[in-house]
Every structure is written in C-alpha cells, then in structure tokens.
C-alpha cells in the first residue's frame, strides 16, 4: 500500500530578523546562500546534506522526507535563535526538503554568515546538530531490490 503523505507535511516558513527557517519541496541552493550574504559578515559557511547512494552495503535508490511542518519550522527557529544567542552570526538560513530526494541531491541546507569564521562555523554546526536531533522531520530510505512497503523510517537517535 502506498499512502499519501500526511496533510501536515507541507511547505512552511518561519522568518525573524536575520533568520529564515523553511521546509519546501525544492531547494534553490544558490538563492539560500545569497540570502545570508551580508556586507558586515566576512565569513560564510554553508552545509549541504545530500542523499548518499549507500547504507551499510545496500544501494540507496531514493530518500523520502516528511515533516510536521508547522512544528518543525517553529523548532528550527528556536534552534537558530539559540545559535544566534551563542555565536552572534549575522544571518542564518535553514532549509529542509520534503518529498522524494533522489541520490546526490540536497535535502538540507544550513547557511550562516558572521563577521569572523570561528562564529560562522560554530553556529552552522550547532544548528545542523540540533536540527538533526529535534526537528520534526522524518526520512525513509529505499534500497535497491527491496520491497518498498518494508522501507524503514530512520532515526537519528
């Protein structure tokens, strides 16, 4: 049986001063990178997570993501605000894709700009780790030669 994705798994966005958190079906990576450019910020750090082609020796054909979007963007914004308090970046953008993500394509982008590189790296890493730990987003991995209905939902825990 192939179910429709949850109706709560939709595009969503949360914006605050210097911060954007969004969930969408496509990721415009150059636009996301441009969105954090800031004349006062000399350091720009971007993390892009892409679908890997294998997991424990099995060939991955695709990933599917779904999200409780309105809660996920709220959680992502809380995470970004904490990073802002800790590292004072200039601008942050976190985008996560939902739906099918073929091998090699980006599923998450975390882009941070800051006056100096130490804060930019720290903020980017902190945001990424907390999003993976807390954001209400789920990934299902499909392997070559395996029954699609038995595809497992992954856990970051």
């Amino acid at each position, binding site marked *: 049986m192939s179910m429709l994705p949850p109706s709560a798994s939709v595009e969503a966005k949360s914006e605050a001063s210097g911060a954007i958190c969004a969930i969408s079906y496509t990721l415009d990576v150059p636009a996301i990178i441009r969105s954090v450019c800031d004349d006062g910020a000399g350091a720009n750090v971007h993390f892009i*997570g892409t679908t890997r082609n294998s997991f424990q020796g099995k060939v991955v054909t695709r990933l599917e993501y779904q999200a409780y979007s309105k809660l996920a963007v709220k959680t992502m914004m809380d995470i970004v605000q904490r990073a802002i308090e800790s590292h004072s970046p200039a601008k942050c953008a976190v985008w996560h894709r939902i739906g099918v993500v073929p091998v090699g394509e980006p599923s998450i982008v975390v882009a941070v700009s800051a006056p100096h590189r130490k804060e930019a790296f720290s903020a980017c890493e902190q945001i990424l780790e907390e999003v993976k730990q807390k954001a209400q987003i789920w990934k299902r991995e499909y392997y070559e030669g395996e029954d699609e209905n038995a595809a497992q939902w992954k856990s970051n*825990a």
Partner: protein
Amino acid sequence: MDLTDLIASTVQVQIRDASSFPSTTMSSASKSTSPPTITVLYFAAASTSIGLTSEEITLPVVKKHSTASEQNESESESTSGPFFLSSLPSLIISLHPDAPNLKQILEESQWSVDVEMVDKEAKDGGSWDKVELRGGEEVAVICPVSGG
C-alpha cells in the same frame, strides 16, 4: 486553544451578570451535544503501522468522583473526569489492534499538543500525565526524528 479557554473561563463570571453577552461560552460549547474529539496526526513509522496519517478520536468518558469544577453547575448527573495525554497511547492501540509494532512505536515516541512538544517527564507540572485533553486539540505522535 488553552489561552482561549482561559479567557472564556475568566470572562464567564462577568457574562452571567451582563445580559447583552451571548449565553454560550467556549467552555460550555465543548460539552453541549457531541462528545469531545481530538485530531491525532501520525507520521513516519506510526502512520505506516496504523495505515493512517490522521484521525479524529473521541475522548472517552473518565469516571470522576468529585464534582468541584464550575462546569458541573448546569448538570445533574455525574460528569466525566479529565483525560490526560498519558492515557492516549493505550486508547490508540485499542483502536488499531492489528497495527504492527504499534505499542513499541508509541513507547519510543514523543508527543505534541497544539503544536507544542510535551515533555513526558517534565518536573514542573507540564509532564504528559498532567496535560489534559478536553476536545479540539491537535495531538501529534512524534516518532524518533531523522531530518538532516
């Protein structure tokens, strides 16, 4: 939802004295004719197991011994006690007895009510055995996440 209920229950004392206000309030409307229901959202492993992404669940009547709340003033028979979030997993399991592995999935899951996570073990009174569901809430089963 909670803030609206709080405002309605706060205003109720004044409504009785002001005849120009409407006679129904949020707190009485929720228990007028139909039993209270909640919307439960399922994602990931929970939705795969149950075969649904959401459902409306009627809150069961919980027998209550004391009738201390002001809502009981207009009722002559015994009213229902509070239904807490911690009682929801067994209710969901009873509604879906054939859902594979559902008990374990729910044990490993967290919960959200009206778009706010609930800490199962919060020490400050916010833990899930103190979170009351009255009807109208959006509750989501949050299986272990895997974003990023």
